[in-house]
């Protein structure tokens, strides 16, 4: 069992019995192949050590691949695992458990950061070594050796597909986490005062982002029980009808909740564009500067910014 936060690749890749059946079919693995593989078990038992040695000869010959096996202990362990892997190819049962095992192997390689090129190169060598041994095993009977190799190739390619999948699944996981982080960073809703929120929008706003913004705004307004949210668009480079519409949709939704919006950062050109395009922004408080917007927002919650009383002369002497 894997410890810690190993992603569940079976789940991520949606590998269920049906999917496994579909794959076995596409790789043309039939009952005959399964039978042949079990028959080759004794061959596998005899050759596994040699094949593993041959594989690691290649791996240790190149610095890039060698780097993954820095010491004897690691190398010895990995060779043992490789033997087990090879023998498992001839197990005869290719079900969810088999797939789960193979995914673990792929995941292990992905985890240590072995690039696909090395992984595939190693598989190629593996097949070549198996071919050699098969020719040997079937002494002269090339046809039988060929058939056996064809079957083994099918199952090895099946395994390689699973290894590929773990790499892809791992990248997907990383991307998902990054996307989530980017989403959070791009819609920073700040509490500037009790029940007063501020959202500075920076960068282009496309439909997807606009939807994201609206959803975040609404969730925050309810969570914080905000009476007013200031949305500053000074950082939005282009404000056309589409963007204006999206902003309006958000203000309409905020209003539906029972809160108000103050729109700030309206530059001269944006003001011109919006009116020329005939966009209605009348039900929303708007200001050119964020500071003015903050004052409006505070007044909505019954507060105002006032100057501090000037200090008396006697206090200055302390």
């Amino acid at each position, binding site marked *: 069992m894997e410890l810690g936060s190993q992603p569940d690749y079976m789940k991520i890749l949606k590998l269920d019995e049906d999917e496994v059946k579909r794959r076995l079919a596409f790789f043309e693995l039939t009952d005959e192949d399964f039978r042949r593989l079990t028959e080759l078990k004794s061959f596998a038992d005899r050759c596994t050590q040699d094949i593993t040695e041959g594989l690691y000869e290649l791996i240790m010959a190149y610095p890039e691949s060698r780097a993954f096996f820095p010491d004897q202990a690691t190398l010895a362990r990995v060779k043992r695992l490789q033997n087990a892997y090879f023998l498992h190819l001839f197990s005869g049962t290719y079900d969810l458990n088999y797939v789960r095992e193979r995914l673990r192997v792929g995941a292990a390689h992905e985890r240590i950061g072995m690039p696909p090129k090395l992984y595939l190169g190693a598989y190629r060598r593996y097949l070549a070594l198996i071919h050699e041994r098969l020719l040997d095993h079937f002494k002269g009977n090339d046809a039988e050796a060929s058939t056996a190799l064809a079957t083994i190739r099918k199952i090895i390619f099946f395994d390689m597909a699973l290894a590929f999948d773990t790499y892809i699944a791992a990248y997907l996981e990383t991307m998902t986490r990054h996307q989530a982080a980017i989403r959070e960073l791009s819609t920073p809703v700040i509490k500037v005062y009790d029940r007063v929120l501020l959202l500075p929008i920076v960068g282009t706003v496309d439909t997807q982002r606009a939807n994201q913004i*609206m*959803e975040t705004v*609404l*969730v925050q*307004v*309810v969570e914080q*029980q*905000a*009476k007013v949210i200031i949305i500053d668009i000074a950082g939005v480079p282009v404000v056309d009808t589409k963007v204006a519409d999206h902003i309006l*949709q958000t203000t*309409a*939704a*905020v*209003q*539906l*909740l*029972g*809160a108000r919006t103050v729109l700030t950062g309206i530059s001269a050109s944006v003001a011109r564009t919006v009116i020329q395009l005939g966009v209605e922004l009348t039900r929303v408080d708007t200001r050119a500067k964020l500071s003015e917007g903050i004052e409006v927002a505070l007044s909505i919650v019954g507060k105002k910014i006032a100057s501090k009383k000037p200090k008396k002369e006697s206090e200055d002497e302390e």
Partner: protein
Amino acid sequence: MAGSIPILKIGPTLLATIQIDLHDTVVDAFQNDVLLEIEKSGSSGLIIDISALESVDSYVARMLANTAKMAKLMGTETIIVGMQPAVAATLVRMGYFMSGIRTALSLQEGLELQAERRKTLDSE
């Protein structure tokens, strides 16, 4: 004839909490109950709490608007409270802005708003 939407009296305000899926008979009973209560208690305010509703379709939106109109005819102001973020988003995406209906974030705020309104009315 009590329906399945409970109506409580909180001072001069009536509070109705919707927690079930609405359909014709429930809506009819509810509107009937509300108006009878307004008549009986002389409440000046009605608060409808929809915080339990995860989705509101046009039927429900219409029902809420109509209930508010009915109450208004009897001199009672309605405030809808507790709308969930996803409900607000869905309504505007559909094109329903429910203009003309007052909303507030919470029951407390609704009560405060109605108290303010009564003060204003009293001073006129």
